[in-house]
């Protein structure tokens, strides 16, 4: 589904990704962990198409296509979803209105009919229940004045609404209390299917109790330096990153 090969990317002349390789197959869940500043969000941004990040080398293939050739909206229309580590606040745009626009632009791009108001509301209701999000929140301006947890929940709600093929969750668990975490995880698990894949970026093993990954990778200094199964996350939780840093420098 996703093949990343020797990816190099930089922002403002600073090289951040330095030859990253990753293969994600349909149905898989990959966890990416790593110290602060190692490039996890950068990878997520590059996959979503943020223009400030310049790819200098390597390739990304998504469903047989050169992903790097596509605009951010085309990627979303083809099923990529990024749950942002820091969702932006957009005053004056209500979440409801925004999602309706998003869904219908995606449907249009796929040659499908636009959802009418009734069906859109039905879908909203269903997904709101799924992630246990409040109606009043969605009527407000997008993320404006939302608490950290509310923003994250809104990201998962959007993911549920857009039903992506490949979801990238960038620290969606950070700042969530344990109840919110469970709700978020349940939402993610409902999305799980043999055709979809999920990449979760996280610092905490506790999320992985709920969303059990098939693979765990350690991203360090712009590269994936270690990969393993869910046991690796436990080991990292226990021992920290120093032993990995040591291994890399050796």
């Amino acid at each position, binding site marked *: 589904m996703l093949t990343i090969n020797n990816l190099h990317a930089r922002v403002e002349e600073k090289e951040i990704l330095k030859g990253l390789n990753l293969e994600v197959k349909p149905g898989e869940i990959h966890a990416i962990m790593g110290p602060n500043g190692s490039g996890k969000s950068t990878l997520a941004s590059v996959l979503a198409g943020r223009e*400030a990040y310049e790819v200098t080398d390597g390739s990304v293939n998504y469903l047989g296509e050169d992903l790097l050739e596509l*605009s951010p909206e085309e990627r*979303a229309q083809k099923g990529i*979803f990024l749950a942002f580590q820091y969702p932006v606040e957009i005053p*004056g745009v209500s979440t409801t209105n*925004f999602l309706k*626009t998003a869904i219908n632009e995606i449907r249009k791009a796929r040659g499908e009919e636009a959802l009418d108001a009734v069906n859109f509301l039905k879908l909203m209701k269903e997904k709101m229940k799924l992630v246990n999000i409040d109606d009043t929140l969605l009527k407000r301006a997008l993320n404006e004045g939302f608490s950290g947890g509310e923003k994250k929940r809104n990201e998962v709600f959007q993911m549920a609404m857009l039903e992506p093929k490949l979801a990238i969750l960038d620290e969606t668990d950070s700042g969530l209390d344990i109840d919110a975490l469970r709700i978020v995880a349940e939402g993610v698990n409902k999305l799980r299917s043999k055709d979809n894949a999920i990449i979760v970026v996280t610092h905490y093993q506790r999320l992985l109790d709920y969303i059990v990954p098939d693979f765990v990778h350690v991203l360090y200094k712009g590269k994936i330096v270690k990969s393993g199964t869910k046991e690796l996350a436990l080991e990292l939780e226990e021992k920290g990153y120093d032993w990995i840093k040591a291994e890399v420098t050796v």
Partner: protein
Amino acid sequence: MSIQTIDKSSLAERVISTFDTVSKQNAVVTAVRLEALTRFETLGFPSIKNEEWKYTNLKPVVNQDFVPNAVGNISAEQLQDSIIPTEKASILVFVNGAYQPALSVLTQEAEGIVVTTFKEALSKYPEIVEAHFAKYADFQKDALTAMNTAFAEDGVFAYVPDKKVLEAPVYVYFISDSQQVAPLSQLRNLIVAGRSSQAKFVTAFHTIGELHSFTNVVTEIVVGENASVEHYILQNEAEQAYIVGTTQAQLARDCHFTSHTVSLNGALIRNNLNMVLAGSNIDAHMYGLYLLNGNCHVDNHTLADHQQPNSFSNELYKGILDGKSTGVFNGKIYVKPDAQKTNAFQSNRNLVLSKDAAMNTKPQLEIFADDVKCSHGATVGQLDDEMLFYLRSRGIGFESARALLMRAFADDVLQNMTLEEVHTHVDRWIADRFL
């Protein structure tokens, strides 16, 4: 430009030569007109050397062969697109400055309320006109107000007596018919709202025709004690339209006054909006929105003149400039020595989308009282890349994402429109513009 040949004198001379045709039926008004005429003859049209006109050059406008008092001919069908759909309204249509009874619809109001034309008011309610005409809009300093005071013979007139409520909002359409000639239209509006009365009215400008049009409008609004008045100026104009105008609001104690000015294109628009807060405990708001494109130029000059203690004024003007458009905002706040405990706020926010567009914004605060709260802020920026990316990452195309953000930018101005029908209509304009 106009194909018809007219005398080659300057526009000012040409206008002045029409003074003979101005009705002299009311001696008081005529005396004022004569004074204003003399003033206009002295002042002439302002040039950019005039500090108040530094960024708006009228020369290319007044050098054109505009025809004063040109007879217009607009059918109801042609008018259709300019009319805002309403449930309940009084509608007055003026074409090239002349009232069109056939295109207008007046709603019956409670006893004592008058909604009519300025001309009609002059013969039917001379004492009200005499008491207020040119008492507020200063023609000594402003040449265009002087010209208007001397020559403008018609416009809307509304009188709402004490404690009365105007049930149907008044929608006034100033149409320029530039199909045959390039018209110069002058309009004079007078709104008098008595103590504890309420009124809402809309003045909308539109040019129909390919030739240029030039409109000079002066609106005097007298808001009585504890009255509540809302005024809209809607300028969804053609690229060949020039509009200059002054709205002068005279506010008495305890009143509420809100003005909304929306300008979409137009070749050149200059709006002066002056609020004189002549009493205490006044609640006054000025909202403005301008969405400019092409070679359009829009200049908003506003004034909140606090003369008495304990009043509040709030101003929010926002603009989006694209193409080669230029915008000017000049916001004056005066706090006179007596006006202690004044609260006066001003904010002007701009998005400049192209490198050829430019915005010139200037707050001008003159504060002569010491116990006041005043603030002002101005920004000129671009669309936020982070926001744009967020929307696009959800599958929303670049153009739609931009449109959403621009609509969102305008939102806190539009939110304050209490006339739902105007709000909806302006929203449609914005959607049409950006999508």
